[in-house]
């Protein structure tokens, strides 16, 4: 274990639902907190090609409401590969480092490895990327990179994560896919 005593951060509470969000007539845009919070079960219901036809919005507001009511979360609750903790608890991901531009269909996530020589950095970045790929509408362009100045090999890791072909080929490796899926599974 590289970092036997990581700092543990407090988890943020549930997001309060505003009156505007309750109104089914008004469109809900996707914002930073939503990426932080996304329900991990969404991708199983959606399935490839369904609900992702690039209609320009996240879907029916009913889906959003269920995200607020269900405490299971998206990138907050991705498990660290080594510690029995989530990326949020280790401060590897923070809401303030998630930037969403719904109108331009972009999502950028900066993640901070716990130590500068963390050998799990690529795996963590890959898990974040896979989670977003599985959960977001197809129209979104994703950028997952290391918080600048926080890792010795950040350029090399960022470059791999940005290479869609390398990501796709890596995920054809069943062992790696299994490890990623374990990071993404909900802990009971």
């Amino acid at each position, binding site marked *: 274990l590289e970092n036997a005593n990581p700092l543990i951060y407090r988890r943020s509470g549930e997001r309060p639902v505003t009156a505007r969000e309750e109104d089914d007539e008004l469109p809900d845009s996707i914002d930073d907190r939503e990426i932080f919070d996304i329900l991990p079960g969404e*991708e199983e219901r959606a399935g490839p090609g369904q609900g992702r036809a690039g209609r320009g919005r996240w879907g029916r507001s009913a889906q959003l409401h269920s995200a607020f009511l269900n405490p299971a979360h998206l990138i907050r609750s991705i498990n660290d590969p080594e510690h029995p903790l989530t990326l949020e608890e280790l401060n590897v991901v923070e809401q303030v480092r998630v930037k969403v531009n719904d109108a331009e269909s972009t999502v950028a996530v900066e993640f901070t490895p716990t130590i500068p020589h963390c050998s799990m950095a690529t795996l963590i970045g890959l898990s974040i990327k896979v989670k977003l790929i*599985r959960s977001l509408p197809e129209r979104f*362009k994703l950028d997952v990179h290391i918080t600048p100045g926080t890792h010795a090999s950040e350029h090399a890791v960022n470059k791999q994560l940005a290479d869609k072909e390398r990501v*796709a*080929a890596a995920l*054809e490796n069943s062992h790696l896919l299994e490890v990623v899926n374990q990071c993404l599974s909900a802990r009971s």
Partner: protein
Amino acid sequence: GQGLSRGDPMALSPGQGWSCRAVLGEGHQRTVRRVAWSPCGSYLASASFDATTCIWKRHEDDFQCITTLEGHENEVKSVAWAPSGTLLATCSRDKSVWVWEVDEEEEYECVSVLNSHTQDVKHVVWHPNQELLASASYDDTVKLYQEEEDDWVCCATLEGHESTVWSVAFDRSGERLASCSDDKTVRVWRRYKPGNEEGVACSDNEPTWKCVCTLSGYHTRTIYDVAWCHLTGALATACGDDAIRVFEESATGDPRQPTFALAAHDSAGPAVTLHCSASVLSTSVEAEPSRKKRPRVSFSRHMSLMARAVFPVSFLE
């Protein structure tokens, strides 16, 4: 088995007169990354993440895999036939470029393994009329290779891009090459021969390649492919921002400093930027529900047959 295409063939261009004639399902175990027709049109090469390249022989609509080229250590990214039809090149994430020779008996032999790149090689392409090979790599460079005294060697390295070079294309004359990159630029390089009138220095009496134009500010994401039309001289790019762009060279430009502008329908019309809504094609392996995979097509010379692998842009000639 996993084939060249499991997507709905009609989804590619409904109503355009294309019909699926064959599905080659028994050749590869993983994603098929690129396909290439031989110059004569009788053979199709398919490069795969399974580390092999299949050679298929066509007899009307029937295709037989006549040989499988093995040797790369991991994913093969590209395959290309030389204009002579007797040479083939492949490249891989194993950082190498392989040159293969084929004889009249359809026997393939590897004649060179080139280890010049320091990273994943994304693309290989042959010069239009010489046995000169170009490769594009994750190491941010383009390299050129030719045979010297019975050995294939790297004869030039084109540096300048600031990130992965995804593709390269020669112009009709072969005196210029265009490269496209993750750095969101297209660079045009020109070959200067020893004793050239511009006074560009050449070492070892070998030609030297210089970057004469950089197209920047047009693309907002990685540029995955570039094609140079041998009929009109136009450059086309395929970009991760879902657009295909066409650039035309300004007629009054200096050949040493050419300029390219986004093509317009007419002087008053908007520039041509074709936005594509990517249809989701199923990949050859469903290990992961796939996001958009842009269709890549390779047109045979005879224009009557098209092979599609999941993952480039090839210019109609």
